């Protein structure tokens, strides 16, 4: 990340912030979508996170830590969006059909169904750890820094989350799309 851009945005340079937002927007949105499992909520969370980044940038002491800091604000926004709508909790729905359906590693639609089901059972904090580590490839210490929690907490959450996802995958196969509501 261009720390000069961060510094200029900290000083109130809207043009610099626009460049920052363009640079990080896609990634923030991708993370939010994977945490919340809902396109509308993810868009709202990303928008709120970007506004929070603008508002709080002057309080970021080290511009080099912008990226980790931005994920913290994003996860915070995901919490807020998750509280606004409970759609992500009990209402299971399949991934939209127009999204790319990779075949590598996913043996069937049943796996997706069960993964989706298992992931939605996790709390936002557990989901965030899984997404930051397994989607962004962030090392656990970096995840801990981004979330502002001890590394041990991150390890514990990751262990718990992966155990839950494994249990979901190992569950007896059920008819695919039985509960789909798209």
């Amino acid at each position, binding site marked *: 990340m261009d720390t000069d851009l961060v510094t200029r945005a900290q000083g*109130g340079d*809207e043009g610099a*912030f*626009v460049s920052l*937002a*363009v640079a990080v*927007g*896609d990634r*923030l*949105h*991708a993370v939010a*979508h*994977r945490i919340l499992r809902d*396109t509308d909520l*993810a*868009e709202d969370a*990303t*928008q709120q996170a*970007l*506004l929070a980044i*603008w*508002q*709080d*940038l*002057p*309080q970021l002491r080290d511009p080099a830590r912008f990226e980790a800091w931005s994920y*913290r604000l994003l*996860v*915070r926004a995901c*919490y*807020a969006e998750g*509280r606004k709508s*409970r759609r992500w909790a009990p209402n299971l729905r399949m*991934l939209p059909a127009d*999204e*790319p*359906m*990779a075949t*590598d*590693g*996913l043996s069937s639609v049943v*796996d*997706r169904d069960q*993964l989706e089901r298992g992931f939605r059972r996790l*709390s*936002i*904090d557990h989901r965030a750890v*899984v*997404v930051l580590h*397994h*989607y962004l490839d962030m090392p656990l210490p970096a995840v801990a820094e981004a*979330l*502002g*929690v001890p590394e041990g907490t991150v390890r514990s959450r990751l262990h718990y989350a*992966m155990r839950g*996802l*494994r249990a979901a*995958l*190992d569950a007896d196969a059920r008819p695919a799309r039985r509960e789909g509501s798209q």
Partner: protein
Amino acid sequence: MSTDRDVTRIVRSWLDEGVTQLPDRVLDGVLDQLPATPQRRAGRLARRFPIMNSNIVRFGVAAAAVVLAVIVGINFLPGTNFGGQPEPTPTPSPSPSAATSTEPTPMPLPEEFMLLEPGTHVAGDPFLVPVTFTVPDGWEGRIGGPYLVLTGIVGKPSGLRFAIFDRIAVDPCQGDTGFVDLPPEQSVDDLATALADMPGIEVTDVSDVSVDGYSGTQLTVTAPDSFAGCTLQSDGYVIWQLPLGANFSMTPGERDRVWILDVTGTRLVIVVTEEPGYTDAQRAEFQAVFDSIRIEPAP
């Protein structure tokens, strides 16, 4: 049976699916709001800190927490609902069992809203009042900074607040009238009086409390049923503002129980927002959490 490696591979592959691009309209929405979204300058924090002597704060915070714990116990004894009259006789030792028993090390309250694990949590650094309390399953909370702690039932996380502030709205209905600062050295009565004199809210059930040697005032604040005709701030019907700029606002008809405690010159404010939809079981949960509150170091 899947191996750990299988699960990791499958999860990673699954996460790789899905959207990766932020729609332009979302970014446009952010940029449209920039002109009306002022940046929060760190200097505001720096200006406010010298007002409070750190030793006084540390000492006061500990004492305030003690007062808080006892007052909370008094007002949430069995049979006392959130909106009811306070107990006429201060009870020096509601002695919540959690406050005296030996417990595992409290879990630190997070800085982001999180579902809390059932058990004892401590709202310590950076919050100036090290409050410890025990929550059941289904509670969330966070430390909002040096001046704010929030906790409550999932979906209602602001049900219980701990706050330290000295800035109140001149008129919540006329947001452009701004705020007035109360000198920190003024008493809890000054804040209670200022709230009672504030237009646009109704203050009732005012009573003095004296707990464990510390004095305080408790009252009930009720917002009007409608804000029609008001010129609201962006945060709504704002009643007071914390030192870092966070606003406390009320919704139409909201009813809050407020405790203002004087702890060696520092005012600690506790707010319980009454939710009409609370079930008896949820009210019992609040009472249990209140009963579990304790402060370290003990007086």
